[in-house]
């Protein structure tokens, strides 16, 4: 094992050392005498002599005159002299194009070979911005060339100055939109990326362009356009089948450096599929957990702790509908069928103003749109679950559907285990997703999603647990013109759980909790010109929570019903943001979101004696609010500011400040997420949480953007998040405020991330040093924890190292290796026992003063593809893997039991031995 790991590492680093590929061109020479020659005329002569093609804005150079003498001198020298003391610069590429422009020089060093007649080092050339076109990848695959690439598209007419080009990028075969693909012109350096609908909008000076299109899972392509005025260009791209396991993030090639966003992690489904998991099935949340700054308390938990935030501080959106419990079976599985996913975006800092309502992160999960051209399907068979997806057109090229389902057969396995304890047990879950999109015309499209996930289990007892997520969203996208489009979204989220026990007819009960959240939002994107991208919109969501009901089950039950009154609240927000490219090097994104929350009646609000710890005994009065009356109002601005400064085209510095407000709180006094956790709205006694985060990062790409590296550091302060008094009761507590306290937190850390997503060896390595500290020092000493000092939160794991590595032996055979190390989770230990007040007492350490042993795990997976014949019934693949290869017993929980009056400690490890898995996947 160790050898294998070393081998992969060696390969990994060996590749880093490979020299880049390059081309050399002989320098072009120019002769002639120009005296106050108009620039256009000068260009004409140079073009004639050298065959180079010049690009410039004729309007801008009409007052530019050239005075220069040249005798067989290199073009660059001549140009340099010609443009000396003017505000013009020039740049060139290796396809014989020269760009003359105003303002700051784009990248003087790329002219290395152009300026000097001497042969140059290959590595210098490798740094060229258009190097993406070179066969830099060692795969040797040919560039995809189609007729569309040669055709010259004439767009618009009669325009002068600037024009806006808009349209969609779609997959040639399925008609699905390509999300997050870039379309850009290299001179001037203007680009845009497609949104979730595959739409882009690009504003350029009128003229002739070679537009490059790059995207995840699509073949690189170009379009030649002559832009004469505003117009549309629909682009179809071909799927990159061969690179199935290669994962090209070329779309984002230099996004690491040039993109505005910081603290953003994007993973597409192909990357996710490579990461080995315990049950062989691709698991979105597991992959997210390998990213820097994302942690969880234990293996069985999908509760994410992003940059020191609590598990309830993540906004999980599934096609824009909020999801409250994204996991199955206590968190061993993500509640998403991997076959339907397009990808996921995780915002850790610099959260766009569009999003709000949670403090720490936004996890935006999008599904695929479905094949618009023909009926297709895919599926998989794993050790615990199976899944099936069908997709196809409803109206060819106009509308498509995709439906998928996944179900477990753990119930069946339990039945096979010949044990009478297990015979009474059951554990079953399923999830269903349906998505329909329809394009009415160029300007209007609608998208509808319905999602449901259900879990039901009964554990060697007479108690049945059930929980259910249901979401639906309907989106209408309307394009007003090339510069403005809007999306109107209606979404509905529902989550409930239900615990019932019927073993004893007299005590039979049913415990229920539910939350409903309808939401409506309108988002607009406006591209006034190529330097500004303006987003604005409004949103409003209504929460309706049934915080708990305990009712008798059956006629014979003597349980007294206890139904807590409903909670209601309305959260509204308005936002606007502008991304302003001040210069090509410096961009600024300014955003402001203003959110308003109203807790609504009918409701009884308890008043407590001031200055006292809130308990039932300090309850003074009860105020009743009628239906629809506002019980409490909170509002405030949320600032979203970020800036980028490019040091050069390979490195940049970014900084950001984000404020977030959260009005709904998850109550859980267990360290991990459990299905009986409840969500509580802010009200007169529970204040909203407020978070501020400052972050700074340095980004650098190596080896012509094939290796991305970043180092980000952040400091975060959290106010009024929920912590619990010792011995808090959360279930069916009518005065929950007596058991919770408003705590303060701070978190800081450094995240180092190196990612290589092309080539035979790819993957990423991340290291995070981070701390997450909590302080509860408000109120009376009884409410303080650890005497009011800062203490480590439950998920404070300072050191975290992850490596996800893949090695492709051949096109059909690849392997993945996962390595994870992190510091152990903090725990509170009992230290001593003593007798006081006639009973044995235990002396505990300070809260979270000790740690469980460190966590360490290695996983290995092999992917075997079927043959690559294009025409065959079904494409299939096998995934064979071993989870926890070394069999290390990582403690999931540490607990103490008193045996014969003696207290003994035990540690429970869930995956205490290597777990082999086999999964069969197919696609037709």
């Amino acid at each position: 094992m160790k050898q294998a790991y070393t081998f992969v590492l060696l390969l990994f680093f060996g590749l880093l050392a490979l020299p880049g590929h390059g081309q050399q061109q002989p320098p072009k020479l120019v002769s002639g005498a120009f005296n106050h020659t108009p620039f256009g005329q000068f260009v004409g002569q140079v073009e004639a002599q050298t065959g180079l093609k010049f690009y410039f804005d004729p309007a801008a150079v009409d007052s530019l005159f050239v005075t220069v003498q040249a005798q067989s001198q290199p073009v660059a020298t001549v140009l340099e002299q010609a443009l000396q003391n003017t505000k013009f610069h020039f740049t060139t590429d290796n396809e014989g194009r020269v760009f003359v422009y105003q303002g700051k020089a784009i990248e003087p060093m790329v002219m290395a070979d152009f300026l000097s007649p001497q042969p140059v080092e290959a590595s210098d050339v490798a740094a060229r911005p258009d190097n993406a076109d070179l066969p830099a990848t060692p795969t040797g695959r040919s560039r995809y060339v189609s007729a569309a690439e040669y055709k010259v598209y004439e767009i618009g007419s009669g325009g002068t100055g600037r024009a806006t080009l808009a349209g969609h990028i779609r997959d040639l075969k399925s008609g699905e939109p390509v999300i997050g693909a870039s379309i850009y012109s290299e001179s001037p350096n203007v680009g845009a990326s497609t949104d979730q609908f595959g739409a882009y909008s690009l504003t350029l000076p009128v003229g002739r362009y070679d537009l490059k299109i790059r995207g995840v899972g699509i073949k690189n392509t170009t379009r030649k356009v002559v832009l004469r005025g505003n117009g549309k260009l629909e682009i179809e791209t071909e799927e990159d089948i061969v690179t199935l396991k290669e994962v090209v993030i070329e779309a984002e090639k230099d996004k690491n450096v040039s993109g505005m966003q910081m603290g953003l992690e994007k993973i597409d489904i192909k990357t996710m599929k490579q990461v080995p998991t315990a049950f062989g099935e691709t698991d979105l949340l597991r992959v997210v957990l390998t990213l820097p700054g994302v942690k969880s308390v234990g293996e069985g938990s999908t509760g994410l702790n992003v940059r020191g935030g609590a598990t309830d501080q993540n906004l999980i959106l599934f096609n824009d509908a909020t999801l409250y419990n994204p996991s199955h079976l206590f968190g061993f599985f993500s509640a998403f069928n991997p076959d339907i996913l397009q990808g996921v975006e995780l915002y850790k800092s610099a959260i766009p103003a569009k999003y709000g309502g949670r403090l720490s992160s936004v996890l935006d999960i999008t599904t695929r749109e479905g094949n618009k051209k023909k009926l297709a399907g895919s599926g998989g068979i794993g050790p615990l679950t199976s899944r099936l997806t069908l997709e196809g057109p409803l109206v060819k090229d106009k509308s498509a559907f995709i439906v998928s389902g996944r179900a477990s057969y753990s119930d069946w396995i339990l039945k096979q285990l010949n044990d009478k304890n297990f015979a009474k047990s059951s554990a079953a879950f399923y999830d269903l997703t349906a998505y329909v999109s329809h394009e009415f015309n160029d300007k209007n499209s609608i998208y509808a999603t319905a999602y449901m996930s259900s879990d039901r289990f009964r554990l060697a007892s007479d108690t049945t647990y059930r929980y259910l997520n249901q979401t639906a969203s309907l989106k209408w996208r309307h394009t007003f013109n090339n510069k403005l489009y809007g999306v109107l979204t209606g979404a509905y989220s529902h989550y409930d759980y239900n615990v019932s026990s019927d073993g004893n007819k007299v005590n039979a009960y049913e415990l229920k909790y539910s939350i409903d959240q309808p939401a409506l939002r309108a988002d607009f994107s406006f591209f006034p010109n190529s330097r500004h991208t303006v987003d604005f919109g409004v949103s409003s969501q209504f929460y309706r929570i049934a915080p708990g009901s305990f009712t008798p089950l059956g006629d014979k039950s003597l349980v007294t019903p206890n139904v807590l009154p409903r909670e209601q609240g309305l959260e509204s927000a308005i936002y606007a943001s502008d991304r302003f490219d001040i210069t090509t090097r410096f961009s600024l994104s300014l955003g402001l979101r203003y959110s308003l929350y109203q807790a609504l009646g009918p409701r009884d609000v308890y008043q407590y004696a001031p200055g006292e710890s809130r308990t039932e005994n300090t309850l003074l009065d009860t105020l009743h609010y009628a239906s629809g009356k506002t019980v409490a109002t909170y509002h405030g601005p949320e600032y979203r500011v970020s800036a980028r400064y490019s040091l050069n085209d390979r490195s940049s510095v970014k900084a950001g400040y984000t404020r977030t407000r959260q009005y709904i709180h998850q109550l859980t006094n267990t360290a991990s997420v459990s299905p009986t956790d409840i969500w509580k709205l802010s009200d007169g006694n529970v204040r909203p949480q407020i978070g501020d985060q400052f972050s700074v990062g340095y980004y650098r790409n190596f080896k012509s953007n094939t290796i991305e590296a970043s180092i980000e550091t952040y400091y975060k302060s959290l106010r009024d998040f929920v912590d619990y008094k010792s011995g808090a009761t959360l279930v069916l507590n009518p005065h929950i405020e007596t058991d919770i306290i408003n705590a303060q937190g701070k978190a800081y850390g450094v995240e180092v991330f190196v990612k290589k997503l092309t080539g035979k060896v790819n993957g990423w390595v991340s290291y995070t040093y981070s701390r997450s500290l909590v302080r509860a020092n408000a109120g009376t000493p009884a409410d303080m924890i650890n005497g009011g000092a800062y203490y480590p939160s439950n998920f404070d794991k300072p050191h975290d190292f992850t490596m996800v590595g893949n090695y492709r032996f051949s096109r059909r055979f690849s392997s993945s290796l996962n390595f994870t190390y992190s510091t152990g989770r903090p725990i509170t230990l009992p230290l001593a026992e003593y007798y006081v007040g006639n009973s044995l007492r235990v002396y505990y350490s300070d809260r979270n003063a000790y740690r469980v042993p460190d966590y360490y795990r290695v996983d290995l997976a092999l992917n075997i593809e079927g043959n690559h014949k294009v025409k065959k019934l079904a494409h299939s693949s096998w995934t064979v893997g071993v989870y926890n290869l070394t069999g290390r017993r990582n403690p999931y929980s540490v607990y103490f039991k008193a045996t014969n009056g003696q207290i003994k400690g035990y540690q429970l490890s869930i995956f205490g031995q290597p777990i082999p898995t086999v999964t069969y996947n197919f696609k037709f």
Partner: protein
Amino acid sequence: MRPAFPLVCRGLAWLLVLLLPACVDPYSPEILAAKRSYLVVDGFINSQGVTTIKLSRTFAITSLPKVPNETRATVYIEDTAGARFPLAEGATGTYTSAYLMLTTGRTYRLRIATAAGVLYASDFVPVKITPPLDAVDWRAEPTGLGIYVSAHDDTKATQYYRWEYEETWEIIPPFSPSIEFVNNAIRPIRVLYPAQCWGNERAAAIQLAKTTALSKDIVSDLLLRRLARTSDRLYRRYSVLVQQHALTKEEYAYWELLRKNTESLGTLFDPQPSQLTGNVHCLSNDAELAFGFVGAHSLAQKRIFIERGQLPFDWPFVSGYEACVPPDTAKGNYIPLLRTGFVVPVSEVRDGITVASLDCVDCRRRGSANRPAFW
């Protein structure tokens, strides 16, 4: 009303065991086995009576719960003016004072010098006067016998209350053996087993109330104890002594946290415990911990008796000896059986004897044969 929570936790543990190759290993970091012997002070300064303080030591979590008493310490009560009232060691680790009448308005503390010469002191605390118990009531209810306390303080000075109680009940064994087994032979019994014993238990539960949210300082009908209808303590005669303590706000907070800490041990699924020591500090070494909260107040107490005849007649008679009757009969050669010592002979029957376990015969196994002074 919190059935779901622990169930889920246990459920999860089950699930893990069941679906996954989960492993449970002993977890014994050195930190747990480390010897932690800190002074524990249990008791309060009685402002109107005898002060009794128990001194002991903490012991490691992993060791058996055998309480190490702290003997030969020098203990005295001290006020801010410097007046001292010594406590003398009686039973091992138990120190008592003379009958004291402390001055209200002064503050007092407990000073301890261990035999090893380490000095401890509690914080100075004001003296509180505990108001008398207005009533200790009992009611026979469908759910069983409820014992309720009521108290009030017109001066509104008490506000924080703690109660302790001690139960005493009669035990009547079902058999009074007429024979005994001595020297491998049966003979008529010479010293009869006691026909009656008295069980006694001091409750471990911490009972607290505060009236800070009320306009008057009144505790009314607070449920202190609930006995099931089938409790063997209600077989003949039952008595409960309720002791009431007036606390300061700080002492109340201490007991409240102690109660919560005792409810569970720290697992992943239990509520977070808190660190708690009290108001006793080591003067010789700041880093040395000490446990216990020494308050200063008077004690109010009240005893009530409940006769079986006062309880509803449809409540079952449960003696606690139900498993003993009828006695077993041993025939033939019963000497080897008796020699094992598991059973004692009860009476002679035709061609044999009846036997019962010692627990069924000797009520001293369950209580004391000495009649309490108040009985």
